[in-house]
């Protein structure tokens, strides 16, 4: 699934809405050269815009290697690519900008992105 499906997956999930109730951020998600701008408000994904962007304004950028992202989204992701921090450890995920929204809502980001995983383990934080 693509990041454009995040609103449908996240916004109706009471757990994620509760975890993210103080989460406000504009997040640039870059998978290789592909980019999306996620507008997060009160733990909901209020909008997702697909790039390319000329002058994007964001709080936080999350840049992920395409191959690592594909593995992350597999139903049973392999070791090292099963978690956002695992991607960070392997230098396949890079964070830029104001990290506070991400670190203060780490469980939210992990679980929200995992909803894009095809079935079975989508609730894994």
């Amino acid at each position, binding site marked *: 699934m693509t990041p454009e499906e995040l609103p449908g997956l996240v916004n109706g999930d009471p757990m994620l809405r509760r975890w993210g109730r103080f989460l406000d951020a504009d997040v640039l998600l870059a998978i290789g050269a592909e980019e999306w701008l996620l507008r997060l408000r009160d733990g909901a994904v209020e909008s997702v815009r697909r790039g390319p962007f000329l002058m994007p304004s964001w709080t936080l950028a999350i840049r992920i290697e395409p191959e690592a992202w594909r593995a992350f989204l597999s139903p049973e992701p392999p070791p090292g690519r*099963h978690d956002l921090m*695992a991607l960070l450890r*392997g230098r396949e995920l890079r964070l830029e900008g104001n990290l506070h929204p991400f*670190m203060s809502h*780490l*469980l939210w980001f992990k679980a929200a992105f995992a909803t894009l995983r095809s079935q079975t383990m989508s609730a*894994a*934080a």
Partner: protein
Amino acid sequence: MMEPIRGGYMAVSLGGRPHRIYIEEAGQGIPLLCLHTAGSDTRQWRGLLNDPQVTQHFRCITFDLPWHGKSSPPDGWWREEYRLTTASYVEAILGVSDALGLDRPVVMGCSIGGRVVLELAAAHGSRLGGVIGLQSSSHVDPYYDTEWTHRPDVHGGEVCAGIVSGLMAPQSPEMERWETLWHYMQGGPGVFRGDLHFYKAEGDLRARLAAIDTAQCPVWLLTGEYDYSCSPEATRETARHIPGSDVTIMSRLGHFPMSENYEHFAQFLRPVLEQVRSAAMARMAP
């Protein structure tokens, strides 16, 4: 029905100061002293302490380090920053072992516990029946800023749980993974970070491995494949410098094998405990 785990408190002097230490145990036989991970406590071992296949042959004992679980920090704690060091960690383990009068205990530790058993084997191997290191490596390179785990504008319990959540295998049962995280969510402010001082900075034990004599103190190392903090490669690299050590890489397990999926972990641990028993019986043979 009550579980067979017994708990209690003991006064132990550590660093010249009195400490109140919480201890749990179950079973009888060979003393098996179990060490919890950074920022957590004895509850991680409940699967082991409730496993009759283990407790029929082993006296399983686990304690909360000072500042963790139900062990109090020392008097004056509010004036100081908690920082675990190799010396203070070893003192706590040997202090509890001596206070309980344990004879050549086997020490099994996970993560920071898996690290410190290497120092125990190097410096105090003659006093031990062996060591079992889970998620054990002689050092780890930092890969995130630990300042995030202790600052007033981020919830410490939630960020600590968030940092360790991915260290578990996605196949581990959800209930056990979240119970493991609950323990992290209950840690005191700055305690996880204080433990990481030992794990990521002060406690680099690479130079100590040459002092380990596995003929005197056997070394078993077991590492879950999903752990990216102490990876299987880090354990193998550690073992390469400990001739005679035994390595098991555990499939579908991560950084918390004993608490994230005990039933699965037990399949890897049982053969090791059989070897521990054989070694103990050989020692006691006339």
